[in-house]
């Protein structure tokens, strides 16, 4: 006979077991309500991307039938996809929300930020973001960051304390035990809160499908003028592409992430429906950031370094 001391039970999970999506939803709602209960001025970072759209949906469910007790904050790089801005404004109006905008373009125009030689504006978001947090005295800032996105994010707490300069110190994080989130902070400090910490890209898409959440159309396959740069399909536009040696072509593409046009690449795809998108992602051999984000490829610790400075 065997010498195993295993007790593999044949019994199935109890009828009280939640599906993984229900478990993730319940956890995220708990996080939203904790923040509502403990903070004075929380805000949701809202980019019009799928993660922030799911956050907004969860917040609506968490406080139903009352309104969401938070406002929204968009860091506008000046190079956003028009479809996404249109979506943002429509959602804000539909739910009667208050939207704050921190504008990278305004900082550049005022001479407070300088355009980078590579043209990407993603790292430039940090200063307008952190200054807006200070000037509006936000004490809790919801972000749609997921731990599956990147290895530095895998180390992020759900409640992540930032100092008065919005800095993240990965070596001095508070241990996070059970579901007892510690949101205490000194005046000037704030807490970044990540309700989707335990979600994966696939979870987000499945949830969007299950809940019937509307998304900006750029997430679905469509014909678009794009050109090749650093192995990615970028959208041609006034932001600075294509250069003389880059040629524009019409391709059937879609986006896996939504960010600044200068560093967010499209993927070749014929997925025009949610089912098709889910099938495509389940079979993909690339992570979403690996497939479409130039800024994470800058160095091995690019995300960690930006997060230390206050990036979300």
């Amino acid at each position, binding site marked *: 006979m*065997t*010498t*195993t*001391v*295993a*007790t*593999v*039970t044949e019994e*199935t*999970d*109890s009828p*009280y077991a*939640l*599906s*993984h999506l229900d*478990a993730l*939803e*319940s956890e995220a709602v*708990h996080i939203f*309500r904790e923040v*509502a*209960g403990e903070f004075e001025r929380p805000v949701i970072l809202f980019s019009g991307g799928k993660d922030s759209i799911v956050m907004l949906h969860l917040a609506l*469910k968490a*406080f*139903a*039938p*009352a*309104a969401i007790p938070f406002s929204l904050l968009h860091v506008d790089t000046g190079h956003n996809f028009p479809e996404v801005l249109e979506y943002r404004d429509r959602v804000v109006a539909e739910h009667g929300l208050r939207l704050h905008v921190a504008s990278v373009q305004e900082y550049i125009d005022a001479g407070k930020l300088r355009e980078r030689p590579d043209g990407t504006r993603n790292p430039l978001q940090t200063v307008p973001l952190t200054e807006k947090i200070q000037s509006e005295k936000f004490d809790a800032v919801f972000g749609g960051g997921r*731990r*599956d996105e990147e*290895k*530095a*994010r*895998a*180390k992020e707490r759900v409640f992540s*304390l930032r100092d008065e300069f919005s800095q993240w110190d990965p*070596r001095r994080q508070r*241990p*996070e*035990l*059970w*579901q*007892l989130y*510690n949101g*205490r*902070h*000194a005046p000037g400090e704030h807490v970044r809160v990540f309700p989707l910490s335990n979600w*994966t890209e*696939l979870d987000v898409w*499945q949830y969007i499908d*299950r809940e019937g959440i509307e998304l900006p159309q750029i997430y679905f396959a469509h014909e678009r003028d794009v050109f090749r740069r650093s192995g990615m399909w970028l959208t041609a536009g006034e932001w600075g592409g294509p250069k003389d040696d880059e040629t524009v072509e019409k391709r059937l593409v879609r986006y896996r992430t939504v960010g600044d046009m200068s560093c967010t690449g499209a993927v070749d795809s014929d997925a025009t429906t*949610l089912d098709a998108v889910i*099938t495509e992602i*389940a079979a993909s*051999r*690339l*992570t979403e950031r*690996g497939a479409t984000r130039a800024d994470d490829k800058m160095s*091995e*610790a690019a995300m960690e370094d930006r997060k230390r400075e206050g990036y979300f």
Partner: protein
Amino acid sequence: MTSTTEPDKAQPLSAEQLSATTLLRFATAGSVDDGKSTLVGRLLHDSKSVLTDQLEAVERASASRGAEAPDLALLTDGLRAEREQGITIDVAYRYFATPQRRFILADTPGHVQYTRNMVTGASTADLAVVLVDARNGVIEQTRRHAAVAALLRVPHVVLAVNKMDLVDFEETVFAKIAEEFTAYASELGVPEITAIPISALAGDNVVEPSSNMDWYGGPTVLEHLETVPVSHDLTSCHARLPVQYVIRPQTAEHPDYRGYAGQIAAGTFRVGESVTVLPSGKTSKIAGIDLLGTPVDVAWTPQSVTLLLESDIDIARGDLIVPSGDQPGTSQDLTATVCHVADTALSVGQRVLLKHTTRTVKAIVKEIPSRLTLDDLSQHPEPGQLVANDIGRVVIRTAEPIAVDSYAASRRTGSFLLIDPADGTTLAAGMAGDAFAEAVETVEEAKKAADDEGWDF
């Protein structure tokens, strides 16, 4: 939906298949060179959860360090300092999935000075994997991991006896280690122990059954993770709802709506049930339950819900709603075991904040009767203070009465944090009641378990 031209193996799962799966949270623990990173890397890799660009990044980084083969530890060591020092300094969370289940893995460092990290990982885990090196057997560190799992009441413990290839896949080596560990862990009250002989490096019994160990008839690590029951029978649990937030829309559509929002910490609640609100002791009946906007008749842990009560009584964040007749005691004196997680010490007489469920109250550390030595479970009396990574008994006096269950009865309503009121630092993780399961329980558990088919020594 899915294309029929694709070969079976590449056939992705349908959305329906994917969303019907359950979630298992588990933690890994092992000493520095037991091969924990390799096991984690193997689980991620063999379950096809490592994607091409991640593997390429690891290959690039490994090559730039002059390594010949890709170092899978780089997949999991995410911080600069970790990569520079080649050690894991903090808990990281990993995600992977099989058609049966989704997994959240708390990857906890094995270093002695990071006991607090294993406590962090174990606090939310349904299962803990304790890794040992087959050549070394059960060592001090193994006993420490078992003790932490027992202390945190992790329901399932897996002993993964690694590096079986280095002991010629000998059954007797495995059997001896499994027996020694099981005896020790059972004594601590660990309810269920599964021992699996593996070689993480070669992949034996991690995802695929090993042809090198025909004598082993049990599951692989992944099979076990996929089949271990995650939820227990909740009908016998004490129902608990800590009130997080009061929802009052005060709109024309909902002028009188007053809902008590929270995540059910334990048990089930039903419409029509009589409930008592603690600490006030006022009673009412459940008039309705909203499950995120949808009315339901019954709800259970860990669902986030909103309860509507028949009578208009004063309830605020921090109150606990329980079934009338099934109440925890309320008290200002609390005896508990704490794991000290901060760099500054915890001393007798210190004023702290105590966060229990959704309630934070002022408190004072009245006594520290003993400090536990995890290696041999001996008690060091009256240590005066606890420093980082110490585990000790404490007696705490709170400024207001709180309704605390024993941690043995409810991990969620029996746990608490001690917080430094000056700067908000989390000082300690607390568990109310007895530290380890009573010896009598252990005997009963062992008897019950011995009757189960799976037990076969």
